[in-house]
């Protein structure tokens, strides 16, 4: 694994790899996300309890799941960067951060829009929503810390520590919020019955989860490439790259 990954610690190799991968990720993303969403919206039967409002699940659940896993992926990248001193790992981490933050935002927003018809309020201090809100703060913290530094190499390391501190805390936060929520159980009904989901509802959900994953991967690659270009713009290989591009355009 390590041997396989090691060449990509070099920015140039990482750039060409992610440049090659981006269209694949993007293509698979479209192939999964479009039919998955259409299937979920148009063809699955309505939930007998929640009616058609349950269709929000097809965007809410993937976003919520992947917002957490993106954070963990960030922390892994940060760890790799700190342990092996890879600059590309920090760049990958910071490329993921805004994507993850957007996923968290989507999860929160769709959660609220789902909560309004179900619970009768846009915002309920439900354990999962609260955790998600804290996750958004975590993302904001990492991004804010990164942008506060002028020297981006330093910034990457600092934000990496932040991501690691956050990931150590995620279980604690999750647990504490659950505790807090059961302690302060309000008058409103704050529980979904966890429905054992029917297969025809499940397939589009799985498709959307996989599609969102590809979306995150594609965007991470794109943003990583931007990051590499910005940081390495004075390097000879970048100028050579640009030169090739121009020649190609001229030839066409």
């Amino acid at each position: 694994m390590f041997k396989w990954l090691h060449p990509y610690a070099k920015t140039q190799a990482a750039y060409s790899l992610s440049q090659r991968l981006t269209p694949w990720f993007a293509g698979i993303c479209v192939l999964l996300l479009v039919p998955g969403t259409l299937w979920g919206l148009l063809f699955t039967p309505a939930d007998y309890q929640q009616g058609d409002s349950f269709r929000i699940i097809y965007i809410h659940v993937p976003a919520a799941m992947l917002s957490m896993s993106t954070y963990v992926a960030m922390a892994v990248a940060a760890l790799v960067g700190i342990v092996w001193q890879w600059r590309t790992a920090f760049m990958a981490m910071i490329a993921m951060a805004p994507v993850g933050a957007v996923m968290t935002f989507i999860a929160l927003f769709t959660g609220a829009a789902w909560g309004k018809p179900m619970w009768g309020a846009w915002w309920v201090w439900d354990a999962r929503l609260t955790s998600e809100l804290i996750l958004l703060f975590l993302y904001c913290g990492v991004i804010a810390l990164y942008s506060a530094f002028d020297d981006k190499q330093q910034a990457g390391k600092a934000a990496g520590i932040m991501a690691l501190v956050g990931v150590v805390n995620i279980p604690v936060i999750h647990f504490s919020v659950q505790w807090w929520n059961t302690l302060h159980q309000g008058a409103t009904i704050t529980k979904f019955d966890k429905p054992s989901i029917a297969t025809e509802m499940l397939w589009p959900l799985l498709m959307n989860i996989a599609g969102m994953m590809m979306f995150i991967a594609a965007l991470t690659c794109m943003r990583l490439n931007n990051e590499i270009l910005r940081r390495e713009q004075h390097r000879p290989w970048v100028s050579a790259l640009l030169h090739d591009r121009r020649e190609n355009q001229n030839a066409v």
Partner: protein
Amino acid sequence: MQNVSCSKRDRILFENLSLQISTGQLIHLRGPNGAGKTSLLRIIAGLSQAEQGQVLWNSRALDTTYFKELVYLGHKSGLTASLSALENLQYWAHLHQAPCSEALLYDLLTRLGLVGLEDLPVKFLSAGQQRRVALARLWLKPARLWILDEPFTALDTAGIALVEQHINQFIDGGGAVILTSHQPLTSSAKLQYFDLEYRL
């Protein structure tokens, strides 16, 4: 004794430099403003890391044995303004495990022309006097390598002479010094120049 090869940061200051320093050598690092002298010194001191390449001490990577034999004095004096010269030096000596009996420190400060100012908070001293307190460290710690970034700023001629004499003694005793300074050094034949140029 040492072999450096580095390049640095988003703006490339210098690339693939190599520099070797051995006992009894004084290296005067020269270059216009912004050439990266301070950056290079900080990399050699181990404060910041080179983007590529590494700094070696006795052909090994930098570790605690290196820090035990190093005195680095940067632009910033490293003195806490609200503490006296004595307290500052005592704290520093504790950290660096150097001898720091009070008698020794009083004696040293007297030699540096700071009689009667030992107990005053450093913020009441003049810039030159503060520089003298900072330079007192060169007398305190038994080291083998000194890295000095503009040691002579704010010093008067007597002070400069004092420090130069001490540097020469140190080099004769087998020490090594790397320093930057915008004024020419008058000292010994062992002086070597190392020039950095400004790169766009």
